């Protein structure tokens, strides 16, 4: 299924200097012109076909998850999200995580450690909907289809205190929008708090 290997420490070495230069050039987007890779090559001082080959490799190694349209969820009307946390027996957590991750309205699904005795939850997912009601209906649908019978809690976000922080920057400096994406994938929230 869609489970991907853990990020590894070798990730850093997957990129050489030329790759980093390319990352710096494309982090805010591809050129919108007929031959974008040629244009990037001119800026980076390498040939068009080498740009293409390097980008292919970065997709294969997972440094680039995918290329294409990256939408603002709120602009598409997905205004509600909920972080839902579950207490799933360890031997069941992978199965549950894989089942949950199939639904279109789930954008993130992670296993995290319990912090006993205060925090028994070990599976986190983010559910989206056009409204809170729809997000809750989606939750019910998922509980039914995955036959989930584990204790869970729903945490809606209320306020954002720090949208962007000084996230560690690798040599190829990463833009705010990319940082935002990163932090979102950990904090899960940009959408409801909607600070745009």
């Amino acid at each position, binding site marked *: 299924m869609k489970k991907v290997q853990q990020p590894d420490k070798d990730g850093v070495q997957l990129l050489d200097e030329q790759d980093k230069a390319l990352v710096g050039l494309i982090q805010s987007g591809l050129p919108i012109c007929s031959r974008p890779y040629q244009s990037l090559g001119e800026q980076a001082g390498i040939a068009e076909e080498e740009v293409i080959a390097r980008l292919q490799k970065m997709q294969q190694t997972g440094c680039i998850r995918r290329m294409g349209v990256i939408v603002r969820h709120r602009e598409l009307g997905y205004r509600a999200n909920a972080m839902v946390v579950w207490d799933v027996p360890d031997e069941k957590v992978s199965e549950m995580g894989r089942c949950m*991750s199939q639904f279109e309205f789930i954008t993130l699904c992670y296993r995290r450690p319990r912090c006993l005795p205060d925090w028994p939850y070990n599976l986190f997912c983010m559910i989206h909907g056009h409204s809170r009601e729809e997000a809750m209906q989606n939750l019910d649908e998922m509980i039914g289809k995955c036959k989930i019978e584990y204790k869970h809690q729903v945490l809606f976000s209320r306020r954002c205190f*720090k949208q962007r922080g000084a996230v560690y920057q690798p040599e190829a400096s990463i833009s705010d929008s990319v940082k935002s994406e990163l932090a979102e994938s950990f904090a899960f929230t940009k959408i409801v708090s909607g600070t745009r």
Partner: protein
Amino acid sequence: MQFDSLDRNIINTLQKGFPLTEYPYRDAAESLGTTESELISRLQSMLDEGVLTRFGPMFQIERFGGAFTLAAMKVPPDQFDSVAEQVNQFSEVAHNYQRDHDFNMWFVIATEDIGEIEAVIEKIEVLTGIKVYNMPKLEEYFVNLQFAV
């Protein structure tokens, strides 16, 4: 912004990927049943209108190095704002959110090395007098990250 069927088709199709070819807009336009210039102009307007965050790569940023965790705190409600201020002073802290729960403060800690995460947590605990719960990602179940319009 109102979407017509071509806009919707562009968003739904190009969330799945983009060709790595010499003329990628032309090739993508062909499969969308439109022209290269029309596709370019639609994408440009969606960027200008703010419908798209960007057109290009979605990075798997952990692969670029660095260490990250999700941290949570149970902050007494009457101290929330002052604790938020203390926590947000740390340059390693990003994306601090209040949520409706006893665990009401949730934020990301990002550092260069994994060992520094614990150090930041200790500093926050000393400064605020409140326990910080460390919940790093152990496993990720991948989702499609696509939104239909």
